[in-house]
């Protein structure tokens, strides 16, 4: 099939066929990454700007590496070093980038819809690398690639997302993507961190982590932001860990046969036991990181339009 999108702003309206194409393409790029010289000339001559208004290590490095593996010319823009601090608006920044004839922009921004807004301001392609609490489509895609590698397909697979669903773009993109691919999805969090009318997503909603573990094939554990405690979403980190933390004790008591994922960075010992995160029997967290590069190569390639001319 053809991939006819100009932008990747989220997964909410992306079809199963498109997701499958991205995952298949990523798989062939994984093979490229195994080569002695893991580099292809696919995007030679293309200019890509990584526009990061929020701090990020993993996602920015992953995109940068994917761009370099595809031989694109890349520019990095991060809020701390740019003129954003001087009060330059997103629109002005975008227009300046546009004037420099950039082909693609990867944007991470604290405001939901920032990628949508940018896509209206510039002629080039926009890839959402996380907008507020809204979406983080490449994270969900790399999660889905990791899941597919382990389980081969999504039909009937039970994926539980555990943690701060309300403020999580990773949760939203995964809910949209996994549902589209036919997985069953559950969310588990303190009642305060479940979004309003979340049942309309047609997901199972748990407030009990033991029940969630008993239900799930995969636990996708989210980072709990320390600032949420100050906003009284939960009373203390200790209580959060005791009631919602994923511990070895719980898994051994309830279900040993379960896969653990985490988008990182992990608060070790709070939402997830440190040694579980590193235990290859359960954890695929490092596979997620590896797959991140391949997924971003696939997305960049498919959006560049290079696939159509070949």
């Amino acid at each position: 099939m053809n991939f006819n999108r100009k932008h990747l702003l989220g997964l909410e309206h992306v079809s199963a066929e498109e997701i499958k194409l991205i995952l298949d393409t990523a798989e062939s790029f994984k093979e490229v990454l195994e080569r002695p010289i893991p580099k292809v000339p696919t995007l030679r001559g293309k200019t890509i700007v990584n526009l990061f208004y929020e701090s990020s290590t993993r996602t920015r490095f992953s995109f940068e590496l994917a761009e370099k593996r595809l031989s694109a010319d890349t520019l990095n823009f991060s809020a701390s070093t740019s003129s954003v601090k001087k009060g330059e608006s997103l629109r002005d920044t975008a227009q300046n980038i546009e004037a420099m004839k950039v082909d693609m922009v990867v944007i991470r921004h604290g405001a939901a819809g920032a990628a949508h807004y940018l896509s209206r301001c510039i002629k080039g392609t926009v890839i959402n690398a996380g907008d507020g609490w809204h979406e983080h489509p490449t994270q969900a895609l790399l999660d889905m690639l990791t899941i597919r590698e382990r389980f081969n397909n999504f039909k009937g697979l039970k994926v539980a997302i555990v943690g701060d669903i309300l403020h999580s773009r990773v949760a939203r993109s995964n809910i949209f993507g996994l549902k589209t691919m036919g997985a069953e999805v559950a969310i588990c969090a303190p009642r305060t961190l479940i979004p309003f009318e979340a049942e309309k997503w047609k997901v199972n909603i748990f407030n009990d982590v033991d029940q969630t573990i008993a239900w799930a094939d995969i636990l996708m554990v989210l980072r709990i932001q320390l600032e949420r405690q100050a906003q009284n979403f939960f009373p203390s980190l200790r209580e959060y860990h005791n009631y919602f933390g994923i511990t070895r004790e719980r898994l051994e008591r309830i279900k040993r046969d379960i896969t653990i994922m985490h988008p990182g960075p992990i608060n070790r010992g709070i939402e997830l036991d440190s040694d579980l995160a590193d235990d290859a029997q359960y954890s695929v967290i490092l596979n997620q990181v590896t797959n991140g590069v391949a997924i971003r190569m696939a997305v960049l390639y498919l959006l560049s339009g290079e696939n159509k001319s070949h």
Partner: protein
Amino acid sequence: MKKSLTKSQTFCRNSAPPTFRFAKKILLKNATLIGHNYDERKKFDVLIIDGKIRSIASPNEATDDFAGEQIELAGKLVLPGFFDMHVHFREPGREDEETLRSGAAAAMAGGFTAVATMPNTDPVTDNQEIVEFIKDELRDHLITVHPIAAITRRQLGKELVDMAELIEAGVVAFSDDGKSVLDSLMLRRALEYAQMFDVPIIEHCEDPFLAYGGDMHEGFVSSNLGLPGIPAIAEDIVVARNILLAEYTRSKMHIAHISTAGAVELVRRAKDKGLAVTAEATPHHFTLTDEAVSSFDANFKMNPPLRSPEHVNAIIAGLKEGVIDAIATDHAPHSIEEKDTEFSAAPFGILGLETALGLAIKQLIKPGIFNWGQLVEKMSANPYRILGLEAPEIKPDVVANLTIIDPDIEWTVDKTKFKSRSRNTPFHDWKLQGKVHCLFNNGYFYLNPEF
């Protein structure tokens, strides 16, 4: 017959001189009059001399040798002048967004003859000088301006304004619009003190704790978009408190821009009890739902926010059943720089004056929810009544205060042609029907140059 406007007939932005003139001697021919005394199937000739209605007669009784100006009104409707009791004209303070004169021009273009201006100017309209300035700016104008003063100094919720002085200066109500008076004791005092002048307290009803950080209506759409929500109950709770205070103090409470099913139900019960509680709704709250925010276009960002369909239906039902007394626009100009940005960074508020009539026709008249008489109640009679002012009537020997519309003309909203200084409308490019043809008020006559 449907007619369309051509581009050459429209005029450019903020053309400086007012486009109205003294109504020396004008004969309105073959007019359809909307009012309880008139049969809408009959035609009348209305003679206006020196701004006053001199006579209303059957067409054949009029003199053929009439010496003054004649205006043919076949196919047009003559209604009592529309009054928007909730506008923000940004002067003093943000004249780049709107001035009293540009706002008045927008009001005329929208078919209004009077407006009540909210006090969140900079400095706040909380003293006689600013009230006098506002009235002076529009002193010899077709548009009548009725200033609303703040309840508390600088709208800080701490000290009552000098209400008696402000009443003397000409204010018609008090409001800390933009936020609620949080301190219930302060609001009680305001209600009781304002009772001496028989004017209402107008409240923007929002619990700021429940609404904290919110950008849009809290519902499934906000959950999907990852935008922080403003729950409906943030409005309901304050409406409930305000009604209780109005009951206890036996005072007049007007609920601004009501937007939730819960608040409509609370006002319904208050009215059933016979309390002096009134409410207004905006055209955008009976036209748009929160689904529109999916575009992340900040022209869909306002407070109260666009609600989900069950709330919108409750607003329409509330208007129909008389629970909601008035249609008011909450005309809130904002600069392009402020609105053309990512959603969460933009301020709340949209323009209202120049699209209100077309939206009311589209949403309320066309579907048969309202007849013209009911629209007049919501846009003229009731706003005047709520503010204790005499409502205009179409009858001989009164100053002509008339909104005359062409109800059939089709037009496309073009924000670049707005008389307002701002452009923040979500209705750009919408196809609407019905537009002001001409206006009479304060002795003046305005003919829409598009006709």
